């Protein structure tokens, strides 16, 4: 089939950037969106032009590297599907696909379809874990965890950290991402112990990063490749309010976001 890819090309954050249209002659309906970009990039390279930079790694929909907007929808038209698993059979002959990167203040632009998502790592670093050092663990069956609870935790833990939720949100909020980690850990007995500290710290860092506020629109869950349910946000809000009212802990500290890539060697 024939398609036109209209792709955002921008060399770096200082460059102005523009859409460039690439007609594609021979698109096999079985190939994935990323394989379609591979084919384009081979052609561009052969023509002596720079290929389109896009993030990808596992191509199985689990690493969370890939993702861009297709005609305004994060990860494209198929529900619960990352662009690496989106096959071209979902488009019609003659379609024009507009590809552009995630756009959010907290995801600084890098090149073409690539952005910097280190903000997510810093939110996890703020408290997205159980504070248990290696060697500290009791026998795995010592604390029973009901199947329903384990399933609930797993539903939230399935998040791949791709950033589609932020890109889809009119407020560029990271509530679904942060809520997913809060919900995963705070329903489990192992994670309950520090649920208050976790909610306060992660929310504080999320705000520090410059993500917008959640206004319960629900675009995030609609585009989420893992269908993380909206309830995780409610869970985060509940944990956060409860912890705020208790005021048992020191106020949460945050770290300042780093946007440049200057490497420190020592």
């Amino acid at each position: 089939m024939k398609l036109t890819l209209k792709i955002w090309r921008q060399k770096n954050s200082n460059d102005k950037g523009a859409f460039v249209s690439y007609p594609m002659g021979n698109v096999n309906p079985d190939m994935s969106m990323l394989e379609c970009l591979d084919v384009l990039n081979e052609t561009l390279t052969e023509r002596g032009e720079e290929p389109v930079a896009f993030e990808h790694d596992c191509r199985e929909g689990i690493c969370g590297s890939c993702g861009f907007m297709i005609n305004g929808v994060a990860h494209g038209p198929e529900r619960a599907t990352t662009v690496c698993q989106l096959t071209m059979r979902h488009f019609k002959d003659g379609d024009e696909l507009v590809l552009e990167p995630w756009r959010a203040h907290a995801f600084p632009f890098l090149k073409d379809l690539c952005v910097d998502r280190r903000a997510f790592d810093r939110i996890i670093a703020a408290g997205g874990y159980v504070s248990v050092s290696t060697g500290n663990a009791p026998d795995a069956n010592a604390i029973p965890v009901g199947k329903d609870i384990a399933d609930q935790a797993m539903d939230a833990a399935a998040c791949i950290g791709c950033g589609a939720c932020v890109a889809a949100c009119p407020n560029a909020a990271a509530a679904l991402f942060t809520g997913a980690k809060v919900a995963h850990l705070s329903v489990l007995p192992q994670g309950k112990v520090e649920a208050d500290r976790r909610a306060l710290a992660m929310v504080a860092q999320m705000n520090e990063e410059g993500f917008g506020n959640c206004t319960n629109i629900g675009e995030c869950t609609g585009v989420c490749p893992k269908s993380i349910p909206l309830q995780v946000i409610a869970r985060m809000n509940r944990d956060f309010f409860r912890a705020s009212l208790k005021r048992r802990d020191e106020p949460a500290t945050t770290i300042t976001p780093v946007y440049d890539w200057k490497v420190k060697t020592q």
Partner: protein
Amino acid sequence: MTLDSKVPSGPIEKAWEKTRFDLKLVNPANKRKHTLIVVGSGLAGASAAATLGELGYNVKCFCFQDSPRRAHSIAAQGGINAAKNYQNDGDSVYRLFYDTVKGGDFRAREANVYRLAEISVHIIDQCVAQGVPFAREYGGALTNRSFGGAQVSRTFYARGQTGQQLLLGAYQALERQARAGTVAMYPRTEMLDLIVIDGKARGIVTRHLVTGEIQTHFADAVILGTGGYGNVYYLSTNAKGSNATAIWRAHKRGALFANPCFTQIHPTCIPVSGDYQSKLTLMSESLRNDGRIWVPLKKGDKRPPNEIPEAERDYYLERRYPSFGNLVPRDVASRNAKAVCDEGRGVGETGLGVYLDFSDAIARLGRHVIEERYGNLFDMYQRITDEDPYQVPMRIYPAIHYTMGGLWVDYQLQSTIPGLFVIGEANFSDHGANRLGASALMQGLSDGYFIIPYTVGDYIASNKFAKVDASHPEAQAALACVRQMTEKLLSIRGKRTVDSFHRELGKIMWDYCGMSRNAEGLKKAIGEIRQLREEYWQNVNVPGSDDDINQSLEKAGRVADFFELGELMCIDALERNESCGGHFREEYQTPDGEAQRDDEHYSYAAAWGYRGPGNPPDVYKEPLEFHYVHPSQRSYK
């Protein structure tokens, strides 16, 4: 050079305990004075970096991805083995040890495997404590499933996303240390060389994948957890970015590379559909618990599967291996799939596929049970193939999945370069010639959480470290080497893309050094690889510059290494005149087509040394001794 495995004398059950006691310790207050470099942030790298950080070392952790959470461990689906015997079905540390040595076709080091089985139980404890949401029974206890090569249920799992959940556990522990300041994380930073000073690994040269900056980093020890090299074959189940550059460049600095030809072909992957294909998608081995594998009895039977009556189907694994049935180990299942396809009984358009059929299981257990067990895998299959596996059988075919070979390490996971430790898939140690399903996650975490923290400590405590910096001639030489290679790749501006070379290399490797090999083919492959490599350095086209994101340049360096490694794999396969595990030499098979080992001549690990461009490599042999599990013809019948 003689290879000292450093396995302690005495009974194997006490080997690790004895070693741990003998290893020297570093005073808690002194730990922070020592910098350690960890390259890679998968299960092995992340767990090592986090644990070393917890202990108080000053850790620098590097990964080429934008976040440590992207490492390819995340894609492991099926599960992780542990000898917990929660199912009361006869499992024990000794049985897991036995199964793994036998599964590896008697080409692994016994003491390492025993330790792995011993540590397996602690891994599950640690992961549960971190909040890994393993599957549970209604009563709250952990549940298990069975996997190939075992007759007990010892595999713990989190739906079809076990690798993801274990990696996120390790990643979260890593981020906790990053926040605590014990670990400095360097994402989008690729290791391109190892700095060896006075015979010890003291640092690495990196290229930053956003700014293009080439830099040196120094430490008292370097730990590589950079994964396997399955992408030599271009098409594999590995992530696109998975590469051998870190281990290969360490090899060129003196680390021996052991058993490079031991590669694992996974039996259940979605078949190739066209030339554009960029990677192969795995369908978890756990599917073989409930799916039945078959092909039509008749050659060239083109009827749709549902119209082929029961009597005209050949459930060839159940027929040939009645006691293990569909749960034979991966190497056996793969070889049999190839054999029936070679006979002309393969299914699908290309004839390179066999059916994995769930209709019996659905009839027996109900669709909801199958959905709960494998729902996400079925969805993935449907997304890719546009076929509904609840209605029609899946089509599957073997694909390159894992590499058992890797840098040679002793019992303490130290390579032949002092101070260079290698963990996870990047080393060669635990799986012999064939890895059992659900054992890779176990090994990565065992190495990272529970072994390296002890053995690195001993190395630090036993050595003195002179201060070194970028001005050292060895550091300057390594830097120059990396700069020169980058400039060279960018200056060729030939006619062919990096991918076109990589595809061609992959095809040579798959045809001659894949599921079955023979001397003639391997010799031919070596010639073709050399020729193609020569063309590569004359005619590759790497567009762009070196001062920003340049994905072609990243690939170009990795493919350059794959050429050299691919050749070594063929040399190793040619030298090993026997069949064992995943290494099947057509000349050496039993009358009924099973792998025929030659224990008299080949019961060793072949560790190869690099001798400069154009020179044939040296081989050093570490003899393998089996005091506990006596080598026998592996039988799953």
